[in-house]
């Protein structure tokens, strides 16, 4: 495994949509490279020709039939979901700030 250069912590945080305070920036900025350096230990293992295992178990072909859910199955649906948890809503929609902008807080 090639030794990876960790991108600047700010760039990574932006990719992950995480605002970091200065203390976090400093701590994470020093810890992450150390943790990754430890992970480099895997480069000792010869994995030539070894298949990757992204799944826990060797299952396949798990499908469901094209049947509408039973309305009495105890799950909240539709507007009940909006009512119970939406941080902001309007006319049945979830409300979010505009993609661009910043004039109003």
């Amino acid at each position, binding site marked *: 495994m090639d030794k990876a250069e960790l991108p600047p912590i700010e760039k990574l945080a932006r*990719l992950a949509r995480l605002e970091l305070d200065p203390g976090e920036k400093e701590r994470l900025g020093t810890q992450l490279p150390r943790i990754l350096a430890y992970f480099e230990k895997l480069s000792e293992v010869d994995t030539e020709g070894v298949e990757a295992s992204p799944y*826990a178990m060797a299952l*396949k072909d798990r*499908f469901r039939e094209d049947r509408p859910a039973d309305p009495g199955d105890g799950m909240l649906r539709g507007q009940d*979901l909006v009512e119970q948890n939406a941080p902001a809503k*309007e006319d049945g929609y*979830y*409300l979010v700030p505009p993609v661009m902008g910043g004039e109003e807080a």
Partner: protein
Amino acid sequence: MSTDSKNEKVRGNIEAQDQDPIAERYETVIGLEVHVQLGTRTKLFCGCENRFGAPPNTLTCPICSGHPGVLPVPNREALRLGILAALSLDCDLQEHCKFDRKHYYYPDLPKGYQISQFDLPFALNGGVRLSSGKVIGLERIHLEEDAGKNLHADGHSHVDLNRAGVPLIEIVGMPEIRSPEEAHDYLESLKRSMRYAGVSECDMEKGSLRCDANISLRQHGASEFGTKVEIKNLNSFKKVVAALQYERKRQAACLDRGEPIHQETRLFDDASQQTRVMRTKEEAMDYRFFPEPDIPPFEISTTEIEALRPLLPERHWERRARFMQEAGLGEYDSMVLTLEQETADYFEAAWKALGPSQEEAKLTANWVMTEVLRLSNEKGLPLSKLPIDPGTLASLCRLIQEGKASNQAARKVFKHMAETGDSPEKALEELGLAQISDPAELEPIVQKVIENSKKAVKDYFKGKKKALDAMKGGVMRETRGRANPGLVSEILLRLLENLREK
């Protein structure tokens, strides 16, 4: 869309001529990525209804809303429809497939990732046949979930998740299209294939077919592609053409000036009919694809494929060719009749009921293309629900053939049948439009007209052929147009010659 405008579009398509001087300087290279919503009852990963037009956030559950702890279970029917779509485009179905997660942040994407297929899509290769016969290759087709809708209004965005999780196939075409008009032809053909296969309505207004386009220009004969630009937000065929035409001009102008083309994603703006930069290559997304651990991989077996193959109807281009050959129809008529499978089915059923000849095919085709499609349009009914079925249309055509109804009378009969559901014979009777083809009934009328047309008879004997038409007209007036015109001429000539001999 009205039948007329549909026809007009097809004609425009066929006649599209590229007289743009850009074509002399550069070759245009276009590749399309088309998203088609699959017509399942429920969404791809949950049991919510897959339906357009419901009030916002009413077709949702914790699963398609991305609540904590939910898991996706894939819909078998979506894969089945996907396989049908792929077969109709001659793709190679893949034995080993899996789902992957594609990450990006947007309010209409509830989980922060879209479940899609990355390196093991369910279909590869295949192609889309243009009306010219040219085949545009496909790279792949994969199955994925749709996002919801983010509607922008007065300083806020409104999020509706009804569409989130609706099954889609993404059909990725090779960059083998060479003009915006070809792109249009490609989309028409693809749409027809999808509708024939019964996998999707492909209604762009409802968003069940959507398109992104890649376009670049290069010198003729160049082996390398030019820098490509991706255009998003193309939600009608017209916009695809307009955006590609604009972008082609823009890129040509850049190249003419010696400026480089930037690899970027652009948006088509409807108001200005122009494209503008959405994001540059530097801002390109890192989607962080990785295998979806919540869904085991799946396999498509030969048995499954062979079980589905017989369900596919004849392909639209094959049917079109057959209509030209067997029925002797022209290219345009064949195209119109095969636009929709049900039109072709209707035509073919009526033709077969009427008789085997090409004459009969032409008579039927004329009626289907005019009165039948118009009626379907006026009533807003599919052909299968019209009060006049193919067998009835054939009966009406037979009346014309046998001289029992004139074309004009038949049109009135058709309208009457559409309202009442009567048989052609009954309608003809009721409207008093039955053609008089009995010589015994016609002869006294003709005799009477001759007696009342002294001048015309004189003119006729002087050799003025036009005088005959005047007398024919007289017979038609007397019979209110119901007289069989051929028979009238015959009797008129016979009686006049008798008179001359006297």
